[in-house]
């Protein structure tokens, strides 16, 4: 996946603007890398050898960004963090190299400006899929529960599609309640990656004011079909 060329905000000795595209960072360049490692050490859980949720909490305090803020998620994406709530040393190195930050102030500034990273559509899509992936905690897990999905929608899409997100969240929660009352074949309890992806595409491609032209034979996911039905009903009333 192509990464946009980043203008170095900080004059950097590292010419690796593309480091996040490669799995392993290059051999450390002396001081910079050491500083990155030191930062890691300042948050790490010594027993685990990883930064754990507590460490992340501390980090958030330092950079003055809430841990539910979308920028923390973007940060995780930059790191390609695999496990939610934990950062490994490699991941940390990767992320900070990517941001070109090796001191706390630089890191703070970098994280603060992270939401600009998503301006390019390809980037956003990659991040969007990652956001879902990041919620999968178990080995063979393929779907994420509705509650988490709703939270994620709010974090990730609300700024760009506030109205749509509100409606979709409302629908998903309603569906969840209804499941108990009527026999609904749909699996509303959790959604998979394909469905998750379809939300973003749907918001991008379909105008909510023009639902008459929605064509359910167009291979939208079934949950989107049902969502549209629900929207139409809602509009009538």
């Amino acid at each position, binding site marked *: 996946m192509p990464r946009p060329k980043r203008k170095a905000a900080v004059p950097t000795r590292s010419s690796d603007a593309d480091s996040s595209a490669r799995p392993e960072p290059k051999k450390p360049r002396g001081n910079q890398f050491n500083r990155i490692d030191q930062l890691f050490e300042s948050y790490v859980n010594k027993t685990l050898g990883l930064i754990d949720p507590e460490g992340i909490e501390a980090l958030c305090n330092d950079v003055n960004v809430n841990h539910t803020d979308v920028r923390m998620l973007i940060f995780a994406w930059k790191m390609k963090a695999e496990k939610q709530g934990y950062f490994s040393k490699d991941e940390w190195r990767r992320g900070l190299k990517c941001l070109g930050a090796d001191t706390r102030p630089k890191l703070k500034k970098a994280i603060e400006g992270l939401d600009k990273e998503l301006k390019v559509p390809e980037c956003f899509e990659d991040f969007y899929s990652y956001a879902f992936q990041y919620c999968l905690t178990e080995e063979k897990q393929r779907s994420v529960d509705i509650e988490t999905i709703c939270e994620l929608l709010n974090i990730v899409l609300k700024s760009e599609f506030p109205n749509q997100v509100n409606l979709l969240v409302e629908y998903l929660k309603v569906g969840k309640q209804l499941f108990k009352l009527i026999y609904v074949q*749909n699996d509303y309890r959790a959604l*998979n990656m*394909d*469905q998750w992806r379809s939300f973003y*595409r749907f918001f991008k491609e379909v105008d909510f004011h023009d639902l008459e032209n929605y064509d359910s034979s167009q*291979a939208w*996911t*079934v949950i989107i*079909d049902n969502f549209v039905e629900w929207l139409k009903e809602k509009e009538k009333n």
Partner: protein
Amino acid sequence: MSSQKKRTFQIEAFKHRVVVDPKYAEKTWKVLEHAIHEIYNHNASGLSFEELYSHSPLPLDGVWNTLFRIHQFMPWCKNSEVAWNAYNMVLHKFGEKLYSGLVTTMTSHLKEISQSIESAQGEIFLEELNRKWIDHNKALQMIRDILMYMDRTFIPSSHKTPVHELGLNLWRDVVIHSSKTQARLRDTLLELVLRERNGEVINRGLMRNIIKMLMDLGLSVYQEDFEKHFLSVSANFYCLESQKFIETCDCGDYLKKAERRLNEEIERVSHYLDPRSEIKITNVVEKEMIDSHMHTLVHMENSGLVNMLVDDKYEDLGRMYSLFRRVPTGLTVVKDVMTAFVRDTGKQLVMDPERLRDPVDFVQRLLDLKDKYDKIINMSFTNDKTFQNALNSSFEHFINLNARSPEFISLFVDDKLRRGLKGVGEEDVEIVLDKVMMLFRYLQEKDVFEKYYKQHLAKRLLSGKTISDDAERSLIVKLKTECGYQFTSKLEGMFTDMKTSYDTMQGFYASQSDVGDSPSLVVHVLTTGSWPTQPSPQCNLPSELLGVCEKFRAYYLGTHNGRRLSWQTNMGTADLKATFGKGQKHELNVSTYQMCVLMLFNNADRLTCKEIEQATGIPLLDLKRCLQSLACVKGKNVLRKEPMSKDIAEDDTFFFNDKFTSKFFKVKIGTVVAQRESEPENLETRQRVEEDRKPQIEAAIVRIMKSRRTLDHNNIVAEVTKQLQSRFLPNPVVIKKRIESLIEREFLERDRVDRKLYRYLA
């Protein structure tokens, strides 16, 4: 008039000298002119033969012919002077004079004739015209003969109209198209036709001659002077007549009248018009009488198409068919109305709540409906294939409106195989089964039928209540032919199990040395998978049975290693010997559950529903039904219930009914007969069918994607539907869900760019 002496003719050699002299030509012409006049005046007696007929000496045969003919008709001819005269004129290139003279003379004569015709009064007009025409033809013939040499040489070379044709043209222009005659002729002819249409007898021979005259004058004359007007007047006539009929007749009568008129016109043409007019006049009649009123006729209240269909009016329907066939879209209108009506009738039938109470009657009515319309199409519509197809598609449409049709058809078959076909001959059995197959073909949800059929077949086999093994097998063969081996392999397995079980029982009893007092046991060993499985929790069998059951189990497992047996207590039957209050003995035929319940009363006088449930372990819903059948059915109430209500509550108490009586020694209380499912059961079966369909749909999707690699959504849906249509019609939404499920399990993936495209992941 000279006497008709036979004369011998001699050809004289050409002796005359050829003289080129204008005055000679003039003189010669005068002679000819006179001759022509005389011909027209029927007064050829004053002429010599040679004056009348001129021929060159060559060719000789022409001369001989003419001489011979003249001898027949013109005995007063004397010499050949005139013949040579004409020949000379032509030879010296005075043909022009001859020809123009002929035209002038003939024209002036025709003018006279024309006037005489014009002055004819009333009826005589046509007769006079006819007579004069006949005369003209005769004269023309003679003149042509006289001038035959000119006809053969001068006329072709100078491109003039030959004599005969000239004569016809002049007749046409001078006589027929005279200002007074033209219109009068037309009007007279048309009036005669009108009178004939109104029932009068007219002079057909005269008509025929006149019409033939017009045709002889040329097709365009016939068409312009007569046919064109004939058609337009006929159109008006039939337009008015049809309007009158429509207002006064019912549909059947109208059609009869239309048919009659049509036949009349055809007959008219054959008698006195040109055959090519037939199609034109029939088109007029068809248009005015049928085409213009098609919809009015078909929808006529109390007598239209629908009424005819309802009342099986084969003759009227046949007439409608043959008449409407003649006009464009005629049959389409009939077919569409019939189709709509059949669909409507069928829809009412399948949606009527009353009908739904009795599945056998429901199906019988469907069959009757099909028979009725088959007969109509056969008797009245000449087995027209498009009508057959329309009927089939109508049936397919409404049969599938009722989701329980598959179940009902299976129940119908069950009824027939259980008792309906008792004593019926083999051929007739085949007929009934074939009709059932026909209905089966209309079903979209054949897999639902299969499910029910299996259940009902199982019950029939296990209760031994099928009237004919052959009939059962015959139907299976038909199903196999229709749906393939897969459909029927399990059904055949069921038959095999029955046979095997029989052999097993033989073996079992042979191996048991001491039967003693234990109840006699008959076991059917069913292969799981072939038989419709219903989860059957073990109920507690009465102790009297446990012994022999164990013996059987031991015997069977001894001879069949590695198998597992589980008693299907919801499917068995038992015969109990019961003695009631006054010593009356009866043999009760009951289900296994009922047996368990009844046996409890050997040791207890009263039991509540709850107590019975605990003792027997029978599931509550089944138990309630069981108790109802034992206590609440008149004539079969071997138990007494308090309170006496029909519903079973947990605290209701049951007593052995000492006072039970029945006319029969053997009393059948079993509830193992196949019957129409209750609503909850129906829902359950449907759910199971839906569940079964999911893997079939997925298998189809995978098969298709494996071979196509990439395919877009709409095409997948179409292909899947096609692959599964012999079993059921898959819901596109369900297909979509299955695709999503396959995506989740990484069998397929969605294309990154084109959301509608799927890719098979190896």
